[in-house]
């Protein structure tokens, strides 16, 4: 059974159809790509999956349960992690603190009463899990530096790590390579591959970087003007003439 199923998702803004009955599915442990030119509705679709926008029609189900009316933060608790196109870190905090707070959010326990009783401090287990993640991503050397002083590439890894700390079953990545150079993109790709391999996390990748998509995913969906124009195995889709015209132009 598929982990995430979007069916007939439609979204209109002031009469303009941004998404026209888009359907997409991601299987358990699968790496899937979603590509499309600017203004194709990728971000709109992404926001519909995350609950930031409510679709006018269509459903989104995750692990068999309907997500349509579930608020953003509850979706995270259900096991959907995400990263941001324009990096969104907790300014003023270190990577370690990012991971600790995400671990706490995952556990979902604690609250004001526990805090008032002095029981809100970082636990041994949270500390260890954060340390583990820092090592997995090779962030040890910068673990205790404030994120605003770190490079974009590192910041993206912190985002991925923060999402992984919530132990998601599905990771949604919104243009993770945007603003990264070749070396940083390579590190990211390697990290994603190992995450998928070792943790079995399913990944939906929304991306511009054709090379990255090709090297990473087994299946790809292509959006153009809010319509799904192609989907299937990566090699097949990139061979498709309509896709080449709409998206790749004369590049490839």
């Amino acid at each position, binding site marked *: 059974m598929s982990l995430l199923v979007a069916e007939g998702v439609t979204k209109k803004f002031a009469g303009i159809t941004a998404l026209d009955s888009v359907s997409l599915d991601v299987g358990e442990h699968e790496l899937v790509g979603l590509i499309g030119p*600017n203004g194709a509705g990728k971000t709109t679709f992404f926001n519909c999956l995350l609950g930031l926008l409510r679709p006018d029609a269509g459903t989104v189900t995750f692990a068999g349960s309907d997500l349509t009316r579930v608020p953003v933060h509850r979706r995270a608790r259900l096991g959907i992690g995400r990263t941001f196109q324009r990096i969104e870190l907790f300014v003023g905090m270190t990577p370690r603190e990012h991971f600790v707070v995400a671990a706490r959010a995952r556990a979902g326990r604690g609250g004001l009463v526990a805090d008032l009783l002095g029981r809100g401090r970082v636990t041994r287990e949270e500390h260890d899990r954060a340390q583990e993640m820092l090592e997995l991503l090779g962030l040890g050397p910068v673990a205790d530096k404030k994120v605003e002083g770190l490079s*974009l590439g590192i910041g993206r890894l912190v985002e991925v790590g923060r999402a992984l700390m919530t132990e998601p079953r599905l990771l949604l990545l919104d243009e993770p390579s945007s603003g990264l*150079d*070749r070396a*940083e993109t390579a590190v990211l790709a390697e990290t994603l591959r190992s995450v998928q391999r070792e943790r079995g996390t399913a990944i939906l990748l929304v991306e511009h970087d*054709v090379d990255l998509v090709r090297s990473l995913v087994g299946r790809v969906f292509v959006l153009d003007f809010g319509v799904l124009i192609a989907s299937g195995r990566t090699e097949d889709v990139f061979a498709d003439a309509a896709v080449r015209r709409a998206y790749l*132009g004369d*590049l490839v």
Partner: protein
Amino acid sequence: MAAAEPDSAAAPLLELRGVEAGYGPFRALFGVSFALARGRVLALLGSNGAGKTTVARVCSGLIVPTAGSVWLDGTDFTGRPAHEYACAGVVHAPEGRSVFATLTVEENLALTFGRSRGRAGTGAALEEAYAMFPRLGERRRQVAGTLSGGEQRMLALARVLVEKPRLLVADELSLGLAPIVVDDVYRILATIRDAGTTLLIVEQHVHHALGIADDAIVLAHGEIAFDGPVSELGDLHERVLGGDP
């Protein structure tokens, strides 16, 4: 103004001499020197965080170097405010959003034209821009923040096309655009070059930038690692950009 200087014809349009610069306590450039001759196209390449954007900002006066000097047409411009650079014919299209999101398309254009053409010339300049980009004409009353990424880039370029500046500093113009739109952007850049504007292109899309550039500079860790004609860059660029230690 610079045209009155005796040696201005011989001097390069833009020259950086030993520039060091940074943000607050963080230093991004260490002794960067290069010259850009009139009519040439220079591609500024390098990995993330190498200091490309900082160089671009120094060239348009947004950042004042902590050491070294910036020369335009043989005149020392070091330490002058950015608007004087603009008045001297430098147009900088900064990285990311480079239009005023709260102003309309027309107001965005009028802000520049009002300064360069005066009240009387603004109308004509606007018509010129709309003739080149009919899409902008259709949306002249629309707030620029609601344009798509590609349209915003068109708006920024329309300003440049009409202005015909002496130097265009284009910082990551293709960032976040679909390949097909990037092609359009580069076609426009070629038009701008043919109109006589000198170009300084900061780019991560190496292939596109090298396709149009005469010369290239490769930055690494705030220092110049290569400076010369594109033809001499050879396969060096693979090594410098891809496998930076």
